């Protein structure tokens, strides 16, 4: 009898220990908050297979490159949520890669202060696999005056896309940059005006991958995605004012 109680106790301690092992490696005060708010409190593990790369410090807090790579999770990826813990606007994107597109995104974001950057990758079993990186910063990237709006004629360039396709093994990397001020509403007198939806489609218009964007994304957003094949694609974009843009890649 005593032995059984002891065993049960040991089990409880063991489970406790497991739970402790999944404490936030970056010890962010915002982890619990974002776990509840962005992941609906669903089961998660911190997983080194989700690689989040960012420079150790933000040389330009308005353009911090973030590279998220969940290819190590194989075919099981359903969705990727990315955010910056301590930003006034934490969310960066929601990415649903589909079958023809790899779970890999490179993008540039704004940070308001030194912050952990997260990518939570939902797999088919309903578990979020979380990768992190930490960026030091002098800050102010989210509230800095718009660079785009200071350039004459920016309205004429709205929605212009420059892009290119680069071979990666059997597949291809698509890189592009869209002219858009991505106003986040935090700069005095300028309401939110930002690209909030993107879809990568094939030549027939079938959606290959979809991307929701939030205004933590930098002005003139830069984006890299990777296709498994070499097929022609089209990128469709829409901003929160209803402007639609299209590019062929």
């Amino acid at each position, binding site marked *: 009898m005593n032995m059984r109680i002891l065993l049960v106790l040991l089990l409880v301690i063991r489970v406790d220990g497991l739970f402790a092992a999944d404490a936030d490696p970056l010890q962010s005060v915002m982890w619990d908050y974002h776990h509840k708010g962005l992941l609906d409190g669903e089961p998660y593990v911190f997983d080194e297979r989700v690689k989040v*790369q*960012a*420079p*150790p*410090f933000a*040389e*330009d807090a308005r*353009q911090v*490159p*973030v*590279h998220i790579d969940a290819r190590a999770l194989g075919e099981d990826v359903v969705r990727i949520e990315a955010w910056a813990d301590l930003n006034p606007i934490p969310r960066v994107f929601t990415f649903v890669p589909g079958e023809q597109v790899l779970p890999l995104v*490179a993008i*540039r974001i704004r940070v308001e202060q030194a912050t952990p950057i997260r990518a939570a990758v939902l797999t088919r079993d309903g578990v979020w696999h979380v990768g992190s990186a930490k960026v030091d910063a*002098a800050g102010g990237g989210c509230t800095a005056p718009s660079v785009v709006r200071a350039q004459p004629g920016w309205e004429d360039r709205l*929605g*212009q*896309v*420059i*892009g*290119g*396709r*680069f071979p*990666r093994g059997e597949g291809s*990397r698509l*890189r*592009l*940059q869209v002219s858009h001020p991505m106003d986040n509403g935090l700069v005095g007198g300028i309401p939110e005006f930002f690209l909030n939806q993107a879809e990568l489609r094939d030549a027939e218009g079938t959606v290959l991958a979809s991307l929701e964007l939030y205004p933590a994304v930098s002005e003139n957003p*830069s984006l*890299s995605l990777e296709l498994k094949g070499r097929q022609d694609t089209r990128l469709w974009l829409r901003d929160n004012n209803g402007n639609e*843009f*299209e*590019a*062929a*890649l």
Partner: protein
Amino acid sequence: MRLPILIIALCLALPLQAELRYPLQPRQIAENVWLLEGSTDNFGPHNGGNIVNTGFIVTDAGVVVIDSGPSRRYGETMRTAIADVTGQPVARVLLTHHHPDHVLGNQAFADVPIAALAGTTELLREQGDAMAENMYRLVGDWMRGTEVQLPSEILAPGVLDIGGRRLRLLALRGHTGADLAVLDERSGVLFAGDLLFHQRALTTPNSPGLDVWLADLDTLEALPWKLLVPGHGPVAGDAAPFVQMRDYLGWLDGLLRGAAATGEDMNEVIQSSIPERFDGVSLTRYELIRSVSHLYPGYEARQLQRVDE
């Protein structure tokens, strides 16, 4: 009985030790030409931002100061150090460019003309406060009381004659868009500002392009110099700093060009391997991370084409 006394003495000594004092010792590098050499480290609370070379030239019409250092405290210490060397008053300050480690000591020289290229004053007006704030973050209390003091005179390229000493002023662009180099014709000492880094990775926050910088190096090397004073790193009596700068700029340009052509992302570029021949150059990885942020977008844009419809 002796131990408590020792402890009390130590306690009394500690606050003195904590006082922030720049160890500035002018070194004569030519007749009447003096150098204050900083380390090749990064900014930090341990060095108060003294990572920069400043200098001064003593003439019969007063002292010409070249750059005022990273903080008010530095500028004040520098002025005391100058007074220890010569009885001549400071006649004028020349600023090589607007970066914080070269100009934030200006307050100590507010009573004399502070001269800079027009572009330098403009850049300091735009960026000075943000750069000063960042310096407080990086080096801390050393900066206490430091504020941006804008230049009071505009310099034009040409010969500046002070007390019969001819200083040849060159207006160049490669490092910040407005870079002053000063050649003391009598001694052949060339104060190159940050157009020359030596044994320390070059920085690119405002560079208009590495090609512009390379062209400036040609202009500087053709001058009749005898001794090179780089903005950062040891002085040289030979062309070694030019050789190192060209090598490094060429490598950086090739790296960014190649990365853009193969579609690399910024985070991939900042992890590129750095050639072993630059092992003796300090802060290469740190400065590569910064340079990718400054310059890579330009290389990318040249590689990508319009694809919207």
